[in-house]
């Protein structure tokens, strides 16, 4: 039974694309068949973060419009065999996507993959609503600061009203991925606490990823952090989040300053 996941946030720059690539890679590393779909038509980035920018021939828009077959547009990752990428077009805009076309592509992808991860563009317009339209599960990426939290709240409202699941009266599952968390600043009270964010958004926590230079260096070489530096705290956070998506009961730990892994005993129950 395949699952369609939308990675969304409302606000830009919070880490949607990084999280899509890293969660996708982590799920593939766990043996799942995964495709990551870039919905940011016109501003594509996912191909860069996955190191596939020189291999793009056809893209999502070509497939949606019927100019290319799905198999022609899919790019298989060179490092993990079960990971594929469906890139966005850089020369077109979001109006090139249609609801029916996207639905058809998602249905086709469901047949050959266990996980279809849709990397949503920022905003609440057509690109973002199409990315979430056919999702079974939403990963809401949020930074611990007020504007990101409010935008995420707005997106959760849209997930509960504009998705196919919501419209057919089913429950849309949503999980929070807190990114760019800075334990030092949180300890000094300069950042919203994990509790505050959870209290406002009122959805289960999928994981917490600390702000880390490991992510930047992984992006620069075009390799998801879970592959580039599997031992880094960021990679571990993404791998654990992926295990939670797979149904494993792994406690979420709040990253602490300096103390690193030893203090990861301060567990927090994952999904309620």
């Amino acid at each position, binding site marked *: 039974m395949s699952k369609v996941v939308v990675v969304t946030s409302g606000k830009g720059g919070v880490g949607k694309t990084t999280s899509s690539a890293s969660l996708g890679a982590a799920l593939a590393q766990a043996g799942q068949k995964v495709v990551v779909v870039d919905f940011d038509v016109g501003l594509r980035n996912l191909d860069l973060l996955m190191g596939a920018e020189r291999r793009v021939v056809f893209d999502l828009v070509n497939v949606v419009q019927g100019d290319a077959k799905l198999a022609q547009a899919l790019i298989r990752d060179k490092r993990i065999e079960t990971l594929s990428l469906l890139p966005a077009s850089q020369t077109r805009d979001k109006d090139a996507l249609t609801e029916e076309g996207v639905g058809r592509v998602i249905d086709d992808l469901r047949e050959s993959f266990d996980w279809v991860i849709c990397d949503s563009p920022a905003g*609440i317009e057509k690109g973002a609503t199409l990315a979430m339209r056919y999702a079974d599960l939403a990963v809401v990426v949020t930074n611990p600061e007020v504007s990101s939290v*409010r*935008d995420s*709240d*707005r997106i*959760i*409202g*849209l997930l*509960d009203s504009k998705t196919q699941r919501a419209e057919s009266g089913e429950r849309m599952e949503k999980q929070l991925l807190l990114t760019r968390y800075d334990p030092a600043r949180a300890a000094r009270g300069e950042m919203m606490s994990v509790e505050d964010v959870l*209290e*406002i958004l*009122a959805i289960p926590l999928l994981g917490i990823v600390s702000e880390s230079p490991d992510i930047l260096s992984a992006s620069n070489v075009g390799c998801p952090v879970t592959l580039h530096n599997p031992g880094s705290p960021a990679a571990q956070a993404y791998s654990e989040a992926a295990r939670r998506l797979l149904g494993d009961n792994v406690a979420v730990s709040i990253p602490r300053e300096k103390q690193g892994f030893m203090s990861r005993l301060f567990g927090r129950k994952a999904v309620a």
Partner: protein
Amino acid sequence: MNAETFSLPKIRVRGRSIMALILCPEAPFSQWFAALDQQMHNSAGLFDNRPIVVDLGPALESVGPESVLVALDGLNARGLKLIGVEGVRQNALTGTPWAQLPTNLHGNVARKARSDVAAAAAPEAVEAQAPGAPSLLIDRPVRSGQSVIFEEGDVTIVGAVASGAEVIAGGSIHVYGALRGRAIAGLRTGGEARIFCRRLEAELVGVDHLYRTAEHWGPDLHGQAVQVRCDRGALRLSALG
């Protein structure tokens, strides 16, 4: 009657109830409009595309007939969408640009008239509606950007009202969670309505035609369980229990 009468199309008339906000200008106008400007500045969008009914009764009483034009011009200049006037006779508007505005839009009158019609047409339907005022229960948080508008009666929310969300009710509003957005109660019941919340972190609260933004209440009430109600013409916020 001639043959032409029969070939004319049938006119279909449908009823619709809409929610209007009521503004009540008070003398001295310079101060009242300054307060309104500040209100509009602090809560941008509150009046956007909302129909507004102006209650001129108090102004007419304290200032006199010349207040009518001043008040209406002042509101019009701020881009508010006036759909009606109350508290003033139609002939007071004759010869002004406002002569077309209806002066008999009062909600209670309209409601009474409508239920009279309903009673005559279908008595059993009225009986079914009779027990208690209607209310709306929302069993999940109201998210930023969402708007809950229920003009028939009370609204109860089990969860929080997010920053950037709004709840507008004909009667009272009960929030079993944090109220971080806007809550406007009493569109139908007026000053009788109250707002209750588990935790006050609101951007704006309003009952009847009275409003308060967060900067008007001190840090003492912030984060507290609070009720908001009208008390002798002023909005009063007090901690619960």
